[in-house]
């Protein structure tokens, strides 16, 4: 019998294929985190219900595509619509009336949404048990030239769609009229209002786009994990960790952080079979990020978190 350490060294041969999975997962985190950062920057609210919105929308896609057998792309569209509708509902019904209230109150309201969506989904779809994933692309793939690493077309699609949408959001903020308005509201809502920007409309747009992105992330991640109402709701912590790496403001850095997180979550699995390693990695990365990136007052300088 091999010594355990030597046995675990054989994990190195797994690294190339784990890189592929890690990148795919990281792409999905990037998408979720970008939505989170967009909402935080424009409306100043840390959305703790982000994962729950993704979860609920994903289960709508599951109901349509897996249970009812309608093509996946329609399920995805329905999920995005659900996500955007939820984002609008949260902003219009509960965030807008709380303008000027302490950040703690706004956080509490997003927690309430988390609880409502989580319980509702559990009642509708059952909180545990196996759910078949929403497969957008077939899982056959190709071998990377000169190596024996197999990349699934689904993995490639997930990565490209997720990273494309994340970077697309950066482009939207930079070059479109809505993007400029969003940045104006993010920098100073009152000045933006004076300049004739409809702050409420821009804020609602950020919630709808951000939540729609969460929905896409939720649907894309279904083939990657054994998904249920709980595991998708706690996606929020992965999004948070990536967003923290981007200081809750910098979108390209958030994408980089998300991909780093995906890899860090997957590499240890090549060497150890212990359950919960992803959570351990996320926890470690979150602590390191908080210790290194944030200094007193930095993240709160806007004062409206």
């Amino acid at each position, binding site marked *: 019998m091999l010594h355990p350490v030597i046995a675990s060294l054989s994990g190195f041969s797994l690294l190339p294929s784990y890189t592929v999975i890690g990148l795919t997962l990281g792409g999905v985190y990037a998408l979720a985190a970008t939505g989170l950062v967009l909402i935080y920057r424009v409306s100043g609210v*840390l959305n*703790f219900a982000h994962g729950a919105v993704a979860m609920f929308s994903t289960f709508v896609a599951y109901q349509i595509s897996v249970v009812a057998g309608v093509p996946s792309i329609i399920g995805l569209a329905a999920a995005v619509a659900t996500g955007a509708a939820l984002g609008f509902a949260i902003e219009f*019904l*509960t965030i807008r*009336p*709380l303008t000027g*209230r302490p*950040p*703690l*109150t706004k*956080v*509490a*309201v997003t*927690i*309430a*949404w*988390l*609880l*409502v969506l*989580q*319980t*509702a989904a*559990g*009642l509708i779809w059952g909180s545990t048990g196996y759910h078949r994933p929403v497969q957008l692309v077939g899982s056959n793939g190709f071998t990377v030239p000169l190596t024996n690493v197999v990349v699934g077309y689904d993995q490639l699609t997930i990565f490209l769609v997720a990273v494309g949408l994340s970077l697309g959001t950066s482009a939207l903020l930079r070059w479109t009229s809505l993007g400029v308005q969003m940045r104006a509201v993010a920098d100073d809502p009152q000045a933006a209002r004076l300049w004739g920007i409809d702050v409420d409309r821009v804020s609602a747009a950020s919630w709808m786009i951000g939540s729609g992105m969460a929905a896409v992330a939720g649907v894309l991640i279904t083939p990657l994990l054994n998904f249920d109402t*709980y595991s998708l*709701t*706690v996606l*929020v*912590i992965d999004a*948070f*960790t990536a967003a*923290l790496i981007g200081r809750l403001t910098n979108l390209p850095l958030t994408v980089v952080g998300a991909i780093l997180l995906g890899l860090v979550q997957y590499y240890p699995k090549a060497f150890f079979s*212990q*359950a*919960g*390693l992803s*959570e*351990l990695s*996320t*926890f470690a990365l*979150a*602590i390191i990020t*908080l*210790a290194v990136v*944030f*200094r*007193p*007052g930095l*993240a*709160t300088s806007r004062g409206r*978190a």
Partner: protein
Amino acid sequence: MSGAARSRVGLAVVVAAVALLPALESDFQRGLDSDAVIIALLVLSVVVLTGFVGQISFCQYSFAAIGAFTVGALMDGHGWSFWLALPVGVAAAVLTGVLVGIPALRLSGLLLAVLTIAVALFTDRFLLVTGTWDGFSGGAVPWHPERPSLLGAPLTGSYAYYLFVLAILCAAILVVWNLRTGKTGRVLRAVRDSELAAATVGLDVTAWKLAAFGLSAGLAGLAGALLAVRIGSVSPGSYDFLHSVQLTALATVMGVSTIASAPAAAVGTVFGPELLSGISVSSTWFPLLIGGTLIVQLVLVPEGAVVRTRNDIARLSRLLSARRGRDPAVAGASR
């Protein structure tokens, strides 16, 4: 009779009623009552942290788990007596709480809240998973701590155990109430309202925050240990992240700024699911009800149900006494 004496008598009557009424109930119902008292203890831990120093936490059940699993491992795994294991469990929870609070040295409240989610998921999806540290989590077979006896009287009966946890809750409320009205309470409120101002007048904000974290985690750990012994087995599923979220929501609905929300939350958890089953809705809807209530309430009544009700009663009694032509200030003072 003066107002203070009258309210003291009223309180004694309420406590006596709460202690005696379950004597008429079934064993099953008394078990639920004990659970509710334990939840009150957890809500109290939220009041200390959120209400006193303004810090939101999503890992109160992780602190409870530290208490529960320490007691479970020491009693079932090492054959310790409950009375030795309990203080160790509470101490372990306090230590964990201080550790989690240390990032408070440099993080704003919201980022710390994010960190507590990471702590909660780390605890219930890594630390307590079979294979990570079976000497603590019990591995595949959960711990089965047995109920102790107190001064020769066994606490195995449901009524005896209910009285035991009720006494602990009363003691905890008394301790926290004394802290709140004393110097500590003023210091903590200063820290909550403005850390900058508190630091300016020479308060060691960090130390007080850490102390609040320690106390809060200790209360949660105590509750966790009591719950472990009440159920008779310790499994990770009872202490996960969603329980913590539910607890935070429940405490916020009641109002985190007042100790009275702890007993109010207990009453809510006993009768809430009961009411739901009364109108032929499953009790699994209860979290939905809490969440929905919280949304509506934060928008309409942000200060919390208990505080609002008390303010309403105060306003009503002022109105009534004003109508009777008495001095409203006197009526207000005798409350």
